[in-house]
């Protein structure tokens, strides 16, 4: 299974989702990590090994691009394709949450 194939099912895993969202503006890897550490109530911890791997995966899949280097740290930013995937994923996650919330409140979709 290639890395591209791992991403091509349309869903982004939690780390990919957070990292793409953090790179709507250009940032270097360390800045992404700091930003993710500051997310309140964050359930998903993204460690350095996962961050490094995921950055490379997303670049390879064409969802991120490297736009500069600051010493050993490279600067990444989301691509148009990455933005499209992020928007889809936000909509998908929103629909999931709304469904679950309605269910918890005892309301069904058809009411």
């Amino acid at each position, binding site marked *: *299974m290639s890395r591209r194939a791992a991403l091509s099912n349309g869903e982004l895993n*939690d780390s990919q989702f957070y990292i793409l969202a953090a790179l709507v503006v250009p940032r270097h890897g360390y800045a992404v990590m700091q930003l993710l550490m500051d997310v309140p109530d964050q*359930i998903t*911890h993204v*460690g*350095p*090994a*996962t961050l*490094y*791997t995921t950055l490379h995966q997303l670049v390879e899949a064409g969802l991120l691009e490297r736009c500069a280097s600051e010493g050993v740290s490279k600067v990444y930013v989301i691509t148009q394709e990455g933005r499209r995937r992020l928007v889809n994923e936000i909509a998908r996650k929103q629909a999931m949450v709304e469904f679950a919330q309605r269910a918890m409140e005892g309301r069904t979709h058809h009411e």
Partner: protein
Amino acid sequence: MNEPNLRYEPRQGVAFDETSDMHRLSTLAAEGWRLIGFKGLRYVLEPAPPEQLIFALDYMYEPDEEYIALSRASGWERVVTMDGLIHVFRAAPGTPTMFSTTESQQKLQRVHRRLLVPVIVSTVVTVLVWWAMVQWGQPWRAQREPQWLLLVGTLGMFGAVVAVQTLFVYTFMPWLAYRLRGWRGPGQVVLSSMRIVIPLVTVVAFLWLMVW
């Protein structure tokens, strides 16, 4: 040759389960032994002031400096690297994991893919060597060569068999270990039995081939 003042600690085999190895390294660090490298299938440690440390292992083929810099920035210092692929990191107790809470299997997928070609190559070589022995070994023995030549030939063939079987075991077994990971109960039994079954089958098959 082993250096004096150094300690050599056998590796359990990180392909099967690295957590026990990493706990062992923590215990050794607390006892005043610092990891400085690998030698074959052993960890090399030197005397050092006792430290409370935790260890982690990652597979990443020839990563660039960004990998090390990101790890360091989050409290993980690389200690040693083996074959440009296996990296051991250390950190203070309580440092958040190097991985993520949900995608810890990523590193296994990476190394699993890297092992596939060596597994195929070693399997083909193993089959070829056995095939060649069956094909030519028997007629050659039947020619009633001088005793010493027969002995040398037999030892040579045995050496070749041991070499290919070793290659096979060291590529196939880790590959199998990754395949069976997550299928822990039965998977571990299969793995443990393979450790005995493969050498046993090799020796029996060889003896059978020579005597038959």
